C-alpha cells in the first residue's frame, strides 16, 4: 500500500469517527424508542451553525463550545420529545416519518432564511496544520475532532452500561411492558433518550464544523449519511454506529480521491445496498 493511500485511509477513519458519533444519536433514539429521526442531519447542521456563531461572534473555539452546545441540544431534544414526538411513539411508522420530515423541512429552510445558502467556514489558527508521523500527514483538526467524538462515544457507552438511568433506558428498549411493570417512568426515560440522541448530534455537529463548512445544503445529505451508517453498522447497536461511521469515512475518502469527489456517496449507497441484501440486520446488529 502506498503512503498516499494510507494517508487517505487515516483521514477517512478520523472523519468516520465524527460520522459515527452523529449516527450514534440516530441509533440510540431508534434502538430505544423505535422512532426514526428523519430530521437528524438538519439538526446536525443547526449545531454546526451554533459552533460557527460562537466562534465568529465570541471567538470561542469549537473544542470549548462542544460541551455547552451538546448540553443545549440535550435540552432541545428533551423538549422536542415531550412536546412533539411523544404522541407519535405508538403511531404508525409513516406517521412518524411525516412528522419528522415536516420538522426537517422547517429546520433546513429556517436555516436558509436566516443564514442564506453560503458555506460558513470556521478558520482556526491551526486549521491547516498537520502532524507528521513517518510518511503520514494527519490534519490537526481532524485528530481533535476524532478524539472528541471517540471520547463522547465512550462516555455514552459507560453511561448506558453503568448508571441507573442508563440501565433503565436499556430496560425500556429490551422490554417496554416489563419496564412499565417494575415502575419505570417510561415517558421520562424516552425524553432523556431523545435528549441524549440530540446531545450526540450537538457534539457531532460542533466537531464537524471544524472539518466541513456549515451550509443548509448539507442537511439532507447528513440525514442520509447517518441512516446509511446506522444500517450498515446495525440499527440499535452502539458499536455498530462507530464501525459503520469509520467504514463510510474510509469509503468516502478513497472514492473521493481515486474516482471523483462527487461520486463518493454512490459508494456509500452501494455499500448500504450490499449490506441490506447480505446482512439486513447490519454488521453488528442483532437478528431481525
Amino acid at each position, binding site marked *: 500500500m502506498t503512503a498516499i493511500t494510507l494517508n487517505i485511509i487515516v483521514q477517512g477513519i478520523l472523519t468516520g469517527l465524527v460520522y459515527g458519533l452523529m449516527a450514534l444519536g440516530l441509533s440510540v433514539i431508534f434502538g430505544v424508542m423505535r422512532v426514526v429521526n428523519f430530521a437528524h442531519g438538519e439538526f446536525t447542521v443547526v449545531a454546526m451553525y451554533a459552533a460557527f456563531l460562537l466562534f465568529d461572534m465570541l471567538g470561542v473555539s469549537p473544542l470549548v463550545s462542544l460541551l455547552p452546545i451538546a448540553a443545549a441540544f440535550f435540552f432541545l431534544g428533551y423538549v422536542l420529545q415531550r412536546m412533539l414526538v411523544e404522541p407519535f411513539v405508538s*403511531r404508525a411508522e409513516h406517521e412518524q416519518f411525516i412528522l419528522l*420530515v415536516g*420538522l426537517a423541512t422547517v429546520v433546513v429552510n429556517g436555516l436558509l432564511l436566516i443564514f442564506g445558502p453560503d458555506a460558513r467556514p470556521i478558520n482556526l489558527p491551526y486549521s491547516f496544520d498537520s502532524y507528521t508521523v513517518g510518511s503520514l500527514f494527519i490534519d490537526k483538526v481532524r485528530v481533535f475532532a476524532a478524539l472528541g467524538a471517540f471520547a463522547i462515544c465512550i462516555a455514552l457507552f459507560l453511561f448506558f452500561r453503568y448508571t441507573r438511568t442508563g440501565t433503565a433506558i436499556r430496560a425500556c428498549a429490551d422490554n417496554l411492558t416489563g419496564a412499565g411493570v417494575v415502575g419505570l417512568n417510561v415517558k421520562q426515560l424516552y425524553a432523556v433518550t431523545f435528549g441524549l440522541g440530540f446531545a450526540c448530534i450537538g457534539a457531532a455537529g460542533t466537531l464537524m464544523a471544524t472539518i466541513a463548512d456549515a451550509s443548509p445544503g448539507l442537511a439532507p445529505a447528513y440525514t442520509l449519511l447517518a441512516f446509511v451508517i446506522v444500517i450498515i453498522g446495525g440499527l440499535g447497536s452502539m458499536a455498530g454506529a462507530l464501525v459503520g461511521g469509520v467504514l463510510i469515512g474510509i469509503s468516502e475518502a478513497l472514492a473521493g480521491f481515486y474516482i471523483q469527489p*462527487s*461520486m463518493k456517496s454512490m459508494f456509500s449507497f452501494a455499500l448500504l*445496498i450490499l449490506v*441490506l441484501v447480505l446482512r*439486513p440486520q447490519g454488521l453488528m446488529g442483532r437478528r*431481525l
Partner: protein
Amino acid sequence: MRDIWQRLPTRGKIFCLAALAAAIAAPLVADRYLLSVLILVFYFAYLGQAWNLLMGFAGQLSLGHALYLGLGAYTATALWTLFGIGPWIGVFIAIPVAAAAGMIVGWLGWRFAIEGVYFALLTIAFAEFTRIGFDHLQITGASAGLFLSVNSPGSDKWWNLGGGPLLYYYLALILAAAATLLVAWLRRSPLGYRWLAVREDPEAAQAAGIDIFRAKMIAMLISASMTAVGGVFYGFYYRNLFPSQVFDIGRSIEIIMAPIIGGLGTVFGPIVGAILLTPLGESLTALMQHFGINTPGAKSIFYGLTLMVIITLQPSGVWPWLARKLGLDRPRA
C-alpha cells in the same frame, strides 16, 4: 367498471360527474396561469394514486419513487433527443425500464424480509444511487441536464407531446382520471383484497394462502409503471431534466404528500390531497410576492408546518373526514 359506479352513493355520483364536468370545462374560463396550476394538481393526483397503490393498499413504504419517475422521464426524453423516437413509443420502453428497477428493489427487499423503515431506506438508497449515476452519465448530459429542443422538426406536434397548455391539461386530466378508475377497480378486485390482507397482517395473510411476496411485487410493478408514465409527462412538460432535481429525495417526498394529506389507502385521497396542497403552495407564493417577500425558504417552511399539523390532528388524512362531513362515505367494507 359498472360495479364501481353502482357502489357510489347517489350524492357521490352527482359529485363525481360535477367534478369531471368542471374539470373538462375549466379551460374555457381559466387563464394560462390557473391552467398550469391545474395541470400540477392532476399530475400530483396521478402520481399520488401510483404511490398510494403500494403504500396505501399493499402497505409498503417507498420513499424512492423519484427513481421510477426519473427513469421514465430520462428514458423517453433520451429516446426522443438521441434517436428521434416519439414519446408514444418511448413510453412503452420507459415503463419496462422503471418496472425492472421496481422489481429489483422489491425483490432485493422482500426476498430478504426487509420491512418497514429498512425497506424505505432501501428505496431511498436506490434513488440516490441512480441520481449520482445519472449525474455522471455523459450520454444524457450528466449533471448539466438534458434539454428538449422546441425547434427540432416535429417537436411542436401533439403526437410528439409538444404543444400548448391545453394539450398538457387534458393529458394530465386523462391520466389522473384513468388512474383513479384503475385504482377504484383494483381496490375491489381479488388482488386488491389480497393487498389489504398483506397490509393489515402479513402473517395471517400468508397463513390464509396468499403469496405475499407475489402480491407485493405486483403492487410494485403497477406502481412503478404508473410512475414512469408520470415521468414521461414530466419530461415532455418541463422539457428539461436534471438528475439532481428529478431523482432527488425531495421529489419522492413531493409525490407522497398528496396521498398522505388526502388519506392513505383511499381512492379519492390522492385527488383531494393534490387539490388542497398545490393551490395552497401557489397562492402562498402569490401572497408573498404581493407583500414583496422574496425569500426562497418561506414556502417550504409553510409546507413543513402544514405536514406536521395535519399529521398531528388528522393522521388518517383529510378525505375520510371530508367524506363523512359531505355524506359521501359508504359503510366500511
